[in-house]
C-alpha cells in the first residue's frame, strides 16, 4: 500500500487531477500570497475523497478524465496536463456546457472546490488558504471545528491532526 498519496488514483490520474484543479482554481499573481488549488494540495484532498466514492461515481469521474484527455488531444494535440492554461480552461468549459457530460463534470468540479474553499490544506502546505484570501471570518469562530477526519491523507500524517 502506498504510504503517501495517491492512495486511490493512479499516478497518471493524480497528475491529471492536479492540472484540472489548477485550471478550476488558479493561483493569483503571487502564488505565495494567493495560492491556487495546486499550491494547497487539492489533489490530495481529491485522492482521499475518491476512496469513499461509490463505484458508479468513480466510473463517472474516470469517464471525465478520459473525455478531457480525448478532447485535449483532438483540439491541442497534447495531454491535458501539458496544455496551456487557456486551452485547459476552454476544454473544461466545453465539457461543462455539454448537457451530456454536465453532471459528471459538475461533480468533478464540486470535489475540487471542496478541496480548496473548505479551507483544506494538505500536511505539506503551511501557507495561506482560500479563507485568508477571501477574508472569510465568521462569528462564533470558536465553534468552528474543522473536521477532515474522513480523509485518509489527513489521518495518515500527524502534523494535521
Amino acid at each position, binding site marked *: 500500500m502506498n504510504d503517501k498519496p495517491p492512495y486511490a488514483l493512479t499516478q497518471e490520474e493524480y497528475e491529471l487531477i492536479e492540472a484540472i484543479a489548477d485550471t478550476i482554481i488558479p493561483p493569483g499573481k503571487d502564488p505565495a500570497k494567493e495560492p491556487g488549488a495546486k499550491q494547497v494540495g487539492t489533489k490530495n484532498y481529491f485522492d482521499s475523497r475518491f476512496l469513499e466514492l461509490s463505484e458508479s461515481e468513480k466510473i463517472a469521474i474516470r469517464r471525465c478524465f478520459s473525455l478531457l484527455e480525448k478532447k485535449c488531444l483532438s483540439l491541442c494535440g497534447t495531454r491535458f496536463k501539458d496544455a496551456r492554461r487557456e486551452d485547459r480552461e476552454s476544454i473544461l468549459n466545453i465539457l461543462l456546457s455539454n448537457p*451530456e457530460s454536465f*453532471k459528471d463534470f*459538475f461533480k468533478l468540479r464540486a470535489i475540487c*472546490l471542496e478541496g480548496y474553499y473548505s479551507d483544506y490544506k494538505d500536511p505539506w502546505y503551511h501557507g495561506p488558504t*482560500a479563507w485568508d484570501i*477571501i477574508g472569510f471570518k465568521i462569528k462564533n469562530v470558536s465553534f468552528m471545528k474543522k473536521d477532515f477526519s474522513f480523509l485518509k491523507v489527513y489521518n495518515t500524517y500527524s502534523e494535521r491532526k
Partner: protein
Amino acid sequence: MYDYDVIIVGSGAAGGALAFKLSHSGKKVALFEKGGGYSTGDFTRFELTAYRNLWAEPRFTSNFELTQGRLKKEIALGMGSCVGGSTTIFTAVAQRAFPENIERWYRETKVVNENGEPLNISDLEDNYRTVEAETSVRPYTDWDKGVQLLSHGFRKIGLQIEPVNAYITKECDHSGCLFGCPTGAKKGSLLAYIIPAIYNGLELYTKCFVKKVLIRKTKEDWLGRKFEAYGIRYLDEQGNEKELTSKVVILSAGALETPLILFRSEYAEVVGYTESAMQIGKNLAVNTGTILFGVFDEVLNNWDIHPLSAHLLDFALEEKGGFLLEMSETMEGPLGFSQVVTDESGMPLIGERLQMVLKNYNRVAGIFISIHDSNDGEIYWNSKIEEAKYLKPITCADERRIEKAVMLSKDAMMAAGAKEFYRSIYLSHHAQGTCRIGEDKSRSVANSNFEAHDCARLFICDGSSIPSVLDVNPSLTIYALADRLAKYLNSERCKYFA
C-alpha cells in the same frame, strides 16, 4: 402483538411533528431516520462538515437523459439527511399557503375536509395556528445590511419587500441556518418536536435505512381495501436487516424519498397495479429556483446573516407573474457559493472569473428566485439496480418567469448600487406532490385522511402529499398537514388504536 403503535419513516417537518403529537397522546411510537442524530452543540458552522453530516448528497434531475436530449437543463434537488430532515438545514421561512393554492387542491384530486366538503384555507386555520405556536413563528424583522440595501433598491423601483415569517426565536445570532442552528434559536422539527417527543417515550432510530413497508393481504374493509401495512423492514447502522411491526405505518420521508420506499416495497405489484398505485412518483413539482447575485461596493459580509429574512410576494401567484423573491441569500459560506455560482448564461464559473467573484464574496448579496411550478415532473424507478431518476422539465413558460424575475431583481439591485451580476445553477429544496392526497383515486395515492387508497394502515404525510404546488415555502403547510393527520389518528374516527 405489535412492536409499536406507530412507525414513522422520516424525521423532517411531518415526521417530527407526528412523532411528538402521537407520542404525547400515549401511543408507542418509533421514528426512523436515514441520517445521523446531531444537535445544537454539534453544529459548528463548518460548511464541509455540515454538507457531509446533515445534507443528502445533491441529486440532479436526469432531464437530458430521460428525454433523449430534448431537455437540456438540469435542476439540483437538495434535502436534509439527519434527524430533523430538511428542517435542520432549512432557512426557517414559515409562510402559510395562499388560499388560491389550497382551493386548487380540490380541483386537482378532490381533497375534502371532515364534512366531505372541498378543503379550503379555513379548514387549515386551526392547524396553522397550532404549529405556528409550537414552532415559535414570528416576523423576522432583524434585517442585516444586505437586506436593508436591497430593500432600498426595491423601494426605488416602487416595490416594498416585507419580513418573512420564520421559525426563529429572538435568540437568533444570524449565523449558520444552512449548517444547523448553533444557538438553538431555529425551531425546526428537531427542537420543536423530536426532543420533546423523546421525553414522551419516542424511540428514535438513527442511521437506519428503511427498505420496505411490510404489506399483507387481509379481509376486505369498508373502503374495499384488501391489503394492510403491518410494519417495516430496515437496515440498521451495522447493515443488519431487521423487521419491526406496528398497527400503523406513516411514510414521511419527503417527496423525493417516500415514493422510493413504495417502489422498493413493490406496492403497485402487490396491490395489483391500481390507478392509484400508478400515481406513485408522478406529479413532481419543485418550485424551480435560481439565485441572482449582485456585487456591491459596500462590505456586506452576508455570510453572517439569516439567509432569507425578507421577501416580495406581489408576483408569487401564477396569475400575478408566478415568481417569488426572497433575500439576501449567499449560501452562507464560500464552499456552497463557489459550487453554485454561474455566469449570467448559467455556466458554472471556473478559473480567474471564479477566483475574482470569490475574492469579492464579502460584497455579494443575493435574491433567491423560485417560480410557480407545474406538477409535471416524475420519479422513475429502475428496480433491477434500485436507482431513481428524476424528470422535472424546465418549460419555456418556466424560463420566461425566471427571466422576468431576474430582470426585476436586477433592476432593484442596480438601484441599490450593484455593479456586477452572477447567477446560480437551477436548484430546489421544495419537492412536492409525488404521492398526492385526494378522493379521486385516479389522481392520488392516499385519501384526504392521508391513508393509502389501496392499503389500510399505511399513511403518507409529507411534501409528497401536496396535491398541487404551493407558491411559497411548503414547510409550514407540511407541518399543518401533519397536525391534521395527528388529530385524525388521535380521534375516535380512527379505529386502529381502539
